[in-house]
Each structure stands twice: as C-alpha cells, then as structure tokens.
C-alpha cells in the first residue's frame, strides 16, 4: 500500500466523459424500460423488451404520439436492486424519461420505485408480483401483472370449484419474495376454504437437486402439490417428482407461464395446472391478444408468453395515457394513466386505487404439451 504516491483519481472524470457525449435531443418523447436483460432472468427481460419495442415501432410508424416519435431507453438491471436504483436515477435525471417500464423482479422494482417516487416519474411494473409494491402509498406506481395474492386467490377459487377432492396440500417454493409470497398467501386463503397444508418445503434459487425436499413432501402424504417456482426450477421439480413415480396433481404459479417450461419439463408437464396473468390458449376471442400474437410472429417468429402480454399492455396503456395527457409531462401522464380503461390482451384493463389492474387471472392446464383453459 505504500508503493506509488501519486494517485490516478484525476483520470476518473475522463472515464465518465463518453457517457456525457450522448446527444440530448429534445425532439422525441423518451420513455425508459429496465429489466434483467442479462443474468438468470434474462428470458423475462427479453420478452419484455420485445413487446415494448413492438408497440413502440407500431406507434411510431403511425405517427407517434401527438406527432412526436417515442424513443425507448433500455437498461439492464441484471435483477440487482442496486443497479435498478442507479438506472432509475439515470432515467429520471439524465435521460429525462416521462415514464418508465420495469422491472421483472420485485426487489429491483421496489428499489427503483423509491427513486421514481422521489423524482415523480410514473412507473409501470411489468411482472413483479409482490403485494408490497403497490401498498406503500406510492402514487407514481402502476403494475401490469396481477399481484401474487390476487393470483393465489384466483387459483384457490379454481381449486375449490374444480378440484374439490384435493384437500391436503404440500407446498414447495423458491426461497425468495416470489416463492414465499405466493405460498404464504396460498396457505392463508386455502385454510379459509377449509383446505389443509400438510408440508412446506423451500429451496434456494439455482438449486437443481430437489430429491430431499420431494422425498419429505411425499412423506407427508398429500392429495396435491403446490409449487411456487419459476419455470426452470419448476420444470426440474415436476420432472423429479414424476421420476419418483408420483402421480400427485401439481398446481403451479405464474412462474411456469413461459413456453420454455413445457420444453424443459417434457412429458412430466402433462396435466400440470397453473395460474397465469395471460395465456394465448384462453385468449382466442381477444382481438388485442391476437394482434400481439400476429405482430410477435412477424417480428420474432414467437408465440407470446405472459411477459410479452404484460409488457404489451403496459406500453399500450402508457402511450394512450401520454396521448390523452396532451403533453409529455410526468404528472399529467400519471393522472391520465390512472384513468386507463381500454381493451388489453387480458380483457378490459383498469387500474385500481393502488395501481394494480382489476383482472381475473386465467388458470391453464398442460394438455398434449400445450396450455389449455383449465376452467373450460
């Protein structure tokens, strides 16, 4: 530590300088979008980006909003709250966005929401389901997806109505906000409906071997299993459960609602039931969803997943709100966003007092390797 006396700190501003050089054109209306474009949740981030870009391009081709183009500034938060806060700060003070989309995970969304609230920037959360996001009296936050408790209550209603024979549940979840939030809500609501929870298991994000947890779960002798996981671990869990020759019915979370889930789980996915904010299988009669499907096929040759739909709806709602506000300013946009009442991929989209959408979530079942409406 006693080696060179001179310090090179002076070089620091020079490192930062190229970032300054970004042109500060006043012309387009700028919105920000941030999510995990890298890291383990990158697939969600990518869907989010694709959908937002599709809506933006369509808008811009049709003349933009009020004659001004929309420009989306994308930023990768890697799922890390620190990055999300830094990005939010940049969106608010340097990129001067009028509105921001993001993020995918609850911690990153929460961390950014503090900055947006401070700086008074409207934020539309895409997939983060934690109830807490919209329950902190933050008037600047909106959410495209349905919060976990609402999804759980939709799933519990479904189970009570369609699977009355499933009385004893064993639960397994990823040990984070997403998994614990889902399972805690499920326990509460299931007990209210007279169901019992006979076993609860957790695992860490990134685990691959669930033998221990599943062996214990099976030992509790349940009627059915509830798994609140993301699709990667979820696929492994049901594969490993089926490898143990267990035929227990499996109910899952919206974390399964990714095409790759069926791909990864293979035949084990057959018969799995889960709640999802959106499924193309239940949206055959929804023109907005069909439009998204057509646009996504044209642009990326993909079938829309839940994140696509959530981001698509968010972007459409946002641009409509900017249009209604009549000027590209944050406060009026927030106010018109609150009055949203439009057709979305998931039906009529309105926001309640807290900023959450008032929608009922579809429940789907995997049949022949595809999602099918479980309520049908």
């Amino acid at each position, binding site marked *: 530590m006693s080696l060179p006396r001179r310090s090179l700190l002076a070089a620091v501003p020079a490192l930062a300088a190229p970032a300054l050089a970004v042109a500060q054109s006043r012309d387009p209306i700028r919105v920000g979008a941030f999510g995990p474009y890298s*890291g383990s949740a990158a697939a969600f981030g990518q869907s989010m980006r694709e959908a937002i870009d599709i809506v933006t391009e369509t808008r811009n081709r049709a003349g933009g909003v009020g004659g001004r183009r929309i420009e989306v500034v994308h930023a990768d938060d890697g799922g890390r709250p620190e990055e999300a806060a830094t990005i939010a700060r940049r969106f608010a003070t340097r990129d001067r966005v009028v509105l921001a989309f993001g993020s995918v995970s609850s911690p990153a969304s929460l961390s950014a929401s503090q900055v947006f609230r401070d700086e008074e920037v409207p934020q539309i959360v895409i997939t983060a389901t934690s109830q807490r996001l919209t329950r902190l009296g933050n008037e600047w936050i909106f959410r495209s997806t349905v919060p976990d408790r609402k999804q759980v209550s939709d799933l519990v209603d479904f189970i009570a109505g369609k699977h009355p024979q499933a009385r004893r549940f064993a639960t397994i979840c990823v040990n984070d906000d997403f998994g614990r939030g889902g399972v805690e809500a499920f326990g509460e609501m299931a007990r209210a409906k007279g169901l019992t929870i006979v076993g609860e298991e957790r695992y860490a994000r*990134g685990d691959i071997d669930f*033998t221990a947890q599943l*062996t214990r779960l099976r030992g509790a002798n349940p009627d059915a299993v509830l798994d609140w996981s993301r699709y990667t671990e979820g696929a492994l869990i049901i594969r490993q459960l089926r490898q143990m020759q267990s035929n227990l019915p499996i109910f899952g979370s919206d974390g399964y609602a990714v095409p790759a889930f069926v791909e990864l789980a293979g035949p084990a996915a057959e018969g799995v039931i889960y709640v999802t904010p959106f499924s193309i299988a239940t949206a055959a009669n929804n023109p907005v969803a069909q439009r998204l499907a057509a646009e996504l096929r044209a642009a990326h040759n993909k079938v829309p997943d839940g994140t696509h739909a959530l981001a698509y709806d968010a972007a459409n709602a946002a641009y409509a709100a900017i249009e209604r506000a009549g000027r590209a300013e944050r406060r009026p946009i927030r106010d018109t966003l609150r009055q949203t009442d439009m057709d979305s991929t998931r039906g009529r989209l309105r926001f309640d007092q807290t900023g959450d959408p008032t929608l009922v979530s579809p429940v789907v079942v995997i049949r022949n390797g595809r999602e099918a409406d479980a309520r049908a």
Partner: protein
Amino acid sequence: MSGAALLEVAVGGIAIGCVYSLLALGYSMIIRASGIIHFAQGEVMMIGSMCGLSALWLAPALHPALVLLAGMAAGGVLAGAMELLVYRTLRRRRVPLMNIITATVGLSILLMNAARLGWGSEPLRYPDLFSGAVEIGQLRISPQLLWIAGTGFAIMIALQLFLSKTRPGLAMQAIAQDPDAAQLIGINLSRSMAGTFAVAGAMAGAAGVMLGSLFFSFFEMGFITGLKAFVAATLGGLGSIGGAMLGGILFGLIETFGAVFVSSAYKDAIGMLLLIAILLVLPQGLAGLRKRGR
C-alpha cells in the same frame, strides 16, 4: 424417514457428488500445477455441457458415450486454449498470481456471456439419455443417477491410471511436484501445463454433460456448481487427487442430507460450516490427514 427413502437420497447425493468430484479434480490439478484457483472451471463445464447438447442436436441418435466424449473434448480444448492463450501469456509477463486468478474470473464472466449470446438465455433440456427406473425391492432409483455415479467413478479411475501409468500423465505429476527438476529431466513444461489444463477441462466437460442430462444446460449453470466444487476441492485438500474425489462426493452427500435433516433454507450454510470446522482441525483439508502423522 424410511431406509429406502434415505438410500434414494444417498444415491442422489452421490450422483451430484460425482459431478462435484470431476470438477474438483480439475481445480486440484490446476492449483497443484500452477497455483491458480481456476474460477472459470465452472464455465468450462457449462461450455462442455452446451457442446454435448449441440452434438445431440446435430446427430439426435448419437450414443450417450459419444455425447460425453463431445463434452469432454470441448472442455479439454477450451481449457487448453485458455492456458495457451491467456494464462501462459500472463505467466510469461511475470504478473503476480493474484492477477492470473482475477483473469480467470474475467474469463468466467466472458464465457458465461458468450454462451448466453450463443445458446440463448433459456435453459436447454437434454433428451433423456437413460430411461426407465431401476427397482430393487421397494427401492426405486432413477437410472440417470446410477449411470452418472457409475460413469463418474469410471472417469476418475481412468484419470488415476492416466496420471500414474502413462508418460504424459507422469510428466504432469512431475511438473506439479517440482517444475525445475522436471524440466531438467527433459519434460516440456509448457506442453505439460497445457495438458494439465486440457485434462482438467475434459473432466469439467464430462461433469457438464452429466449435469446437463440430469437437469439441463444453462449459461449460468457453472457459477454456483463451480463454486461448490471449489469448496469440495478445498475440503479434500487442494492439490490432492484423491482428496478432490472424496471431497466432491462428501460435499454432495452433506448437501443432500443437510437439506433432508436441517432446513433447506440453510442448506448451503451447513456445508460451509462443516467446511470451516474441518479446515480448523485440518488446515490442509482431508488430504492433510495423511500428512499429519509425519
């Protein structure tokens, strides 16, 4: 918990442990030969896994042994190339070991993101290489697990034979023990070092194919697994081949049984606590047991 269920868990632990062992072997061989903690070892495994899968895509009917071989070849070539292109250059410039170790972290970030761009950010499923269930009495064991444990042991035995019976293997051992003396008796240091990395990479590639076929291939799969294997190698005693094998299997068992008997939320903590405890008694890991008598 019934005895049969315990046995099922144990087989699962041993299979995972074999994967750790194969990776840990690489860590151990490399650290012994060069002093480098090779943090990119997990990523070499990941690339091996991806390449094995790609081979399956090209030839769907490929025999599992050939898939394994493809993964090993990919891992071996990659690790050998890393040594020749990066680490050797760094050594020639006489940079401190810490810099080389940091370069391995850099390479690990680089490989992970290259794989994300090349193979996408979605996990990729291996077709089931082995199917059916082996039933012994009331015990049902997935054949995947048995195959993996069996293949793992076979590869480790092969490595032992290679290191103790063949010329290049003996040369690697000699380089690791005393590089100066080895050079004096005419062993090519640079070639043997590259060979060590290549063999370590091939072990990692095999681990990748096994892990992939048990679970799936994913650009981030190497990070946590690699870290755990490093811990396993330390547990066994860095630089000790036998220790690495033992450490890997032990770590797999500790982890799996830890999840059964203690909370799964703190599953990773159990392994770590045990590791720290063992290191306090045996500062050189399990391999230190043997030296202790001296």
